[in-house]
């Protein structure tokens, strides 16, 4: 398989000028056809191996883009089935209710519930202004493999032993496949919650569609 000079520089993870110097100095095995220089991949790999150099072909451009596409609140809440409204008496009940309506595989639900309660027992996830964001301490082994936010409004506010002791009326349950996405979503969520208008908007119990469009407008403000 033929490799061009710039591809080789990428595979060996060294600057182009260095490859050019190595070619000039005759330190790297090259092939020539006419005036153009190219590399034979098998020979090059052997050469790199004998010199203890890393030879890693770059991952395909399209793969990288998928993993790099950032999650948004809008897409994850939509994945969680929009806005749910139900009644609960206490913290455990509220979390149990949220897990029940969660859009995940059924067999993982007991585990998710356990992990959420475990986190709640360490310290409350009520972050003030009547909002709580229950989440497990780390990514769950059995999924979900895509971030899901289950947005819930409670019929009657319950005591969540939140930081400002205000009863909680809205919960956003965060389930994320890794810490990075978790932090990313958390920072977006806290940006919304910091805004008094958003809290007022939630208290008015909006429809799922209006709720989602409100989230979208907040996020577009954040991205601008």
């Amino acid at each position: 398989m033929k490799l061009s000079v710039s591809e080789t520089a990428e595979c060996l993870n060294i600057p182009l000028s260095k490859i050019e110097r190595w070619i000039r100095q005759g330190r790297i095995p090259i092939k020539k056809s006419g005036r153009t220089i190219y590399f034979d991949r098998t020979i090059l790999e052997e050469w790199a191996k004998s010199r203890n150099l890393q030879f890693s072909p770059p991952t395909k451009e399209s793969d990288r883009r998928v993993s790099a596409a950032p999650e948004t609140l809008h897409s994850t809440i939509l994945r969680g089935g929009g806005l749910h409204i139900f009644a609960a008496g206490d913290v455990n009940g509220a979390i149990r209710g949220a897990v029940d309506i969660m859009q995940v595989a059924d067999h993982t639900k007991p585990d998710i519930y356990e992990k959420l309660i475990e986190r709640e027992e360490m310290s409350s996830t009520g972050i003030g202004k009547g909002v709580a964001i229950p989440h497990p301490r780390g990514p769950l082994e059995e999924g979900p493999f895509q971030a899901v936010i289950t947005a819930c409004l409670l019929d009657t506010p319950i005591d969540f032993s939140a930081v400002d002791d205000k009863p909680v009326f809205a919960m956003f349950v965060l389930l994320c496949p890794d810490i990075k996405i978790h932090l990313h979503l958390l920072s977006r969520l806290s940006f919304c919650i910091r805004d008094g208008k958003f809290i007022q908007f939630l208290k008015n119990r909006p429809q799922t569609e209006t709720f989602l469009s409100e989230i979208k407008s907040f996020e577009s403000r954040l991205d601008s």
Partner: protein
Amino acid sequence: MSKLIRWRYPARWTFFRMDDRLLLMIIGAIVGVCSGLAALALYWSLETLLEFFHHYRHYWWAFVLPAVGAALSSLFLNKIMNEGAGHGVPEVIYSVSRYGGLLRARSSFSRLISSCLTIGFGGSAGPEAPVVMSGSAIGSNIARFFSLNDRQRITLVGCGAAGAISSIFNAPIAGLVFTVEVILGEWTALNIVPVAIASVAGCEVSQLIRGNHVAFAHQQFDIGIMDIFACIALAGFTAAASILLTRALRSMHTVSSKVKIPLWARAAVGGCAVGAIGIFLPDSMGEGYHAIQSMVENGYTPGLKIAAFYVLAKILTTSLTLGWGGSGGVFAPCLVIGSFTGLAFHRAISFIWPGVAWVNEGCFALLGMAGLISGILQAPLTGIFLIVEISGGYAVILPLILVSAVSTTLCHYVEPASFYLKDLVEKGQLLRPGTDARVLSDLKINELLETDCIAVRPDMLLRDFIEILTRSSRNYFPVEDEKTGRFLGMIHLNDIRPYLFNQGMHDAVFLEQIMDTRIKRVHPNYNLNDVLQIMDTDGLFSMPVVSNKRFLGMISKATLLDQYRRELMVQTSHQ
């Protein structure tokens, strides 16, 4: 035309695509033949010139002859060829280590002519270094003609040097060993095979034209245990003579450079002095092979005092010739001084202990030569193999090794660098393969640039800067003028950490107030060695690279280590 182009790129022929070793062997043989011919040309023209001037030696005005020769050679080198004086071997070594063996085409004959003028008119110098220079230049230019890469070109430069030495001495192994030990400084299978072939080719040429004469063959040496002990003492004398010669050359050079007259006049002054000495001591002039010949064949009649005096006289004439601007090498003078030292030593010990059956004085002359070569060049193997080959046998190998080893060691104490390498070491230009200096000189700053820094403007508020901070992965931020793109200064996160969390300062501070304008910067042409020195003295880990008032990127020790290691791995593994 297309045929010609094809012919000029033999590396493209399918025949050679298999392995470039084959290519190097064949071109190496060609180079060996060419440089062997160059060496012979110098040898013959020297013979002719010396023969021609022999008739004029007895005239009173003969002492100006070396002056005329030295002045002419100096004029030729400086005005016509536009090259510096000196014997050329350091230039070859430097070019091999720094420029991949690139040498000018005119170097292939310039030193031949200039040294021919100097020595032919009676100056005391050797034709070997000029021959090495021209052989190397021939190799380099043949490599360039065939558009070979640096590594191949360096091998061919070595081939040229080896062919020249082996042709002039009719000593193929000495040519090979000299090249590898002095010129290339690297023993690898890739180098040695083509160099050996070139060496043999050069030798063959010389044998075809001059006939196969081993210089001092058919000598019988019966070496006893007492001779071995005497050798160790002899090594002390040869070491002393080597050091004396090195010092004399150097001090002559310093003295002559203080005299404010044109270069050719300087050379003439030195030549006059040589000529004056030559009236009384004729054997101290020229390259001196005839004197060596008669000494080794036990035919040298003058006594102990004259021989000892000749050692000093030859040192003086050599340093006068070379130190004042004549052209030539020290190889042949070394051999002459060495044989005089050996001869004087032999006469001294047979005078003090007349009862001991010493081996004949020719043997001591040979040993003295080996001692001098090993001492001056600090290349013991070259000394050993040269003497073995010109004496035609291994009879003297044991005392040879002894004298060479002791002489080299003693000289190394006083003069750590050999005569050829001294200037290079002092200028920090000795870059032997696989050494730290070589790796650092090969790496260029633009290969180490880290360009992922985000540039900021001087009139930016700290609040806006914090926005940028959240997106950046680096701790350094270059500040650039918005209109001209000029590099103004650097913001390092460490410097502004205390203000970052002070809300009150966010709108009160502009970046131009907190940037570091006096930060040490480097230019892309800087030597990495110097950059590292700056980093070490100032305790820095990274520095901005600025060219033409524009920021190009950062250079940091972390990247340097990464690239340094790769370079080292690629440079030091040979397969």
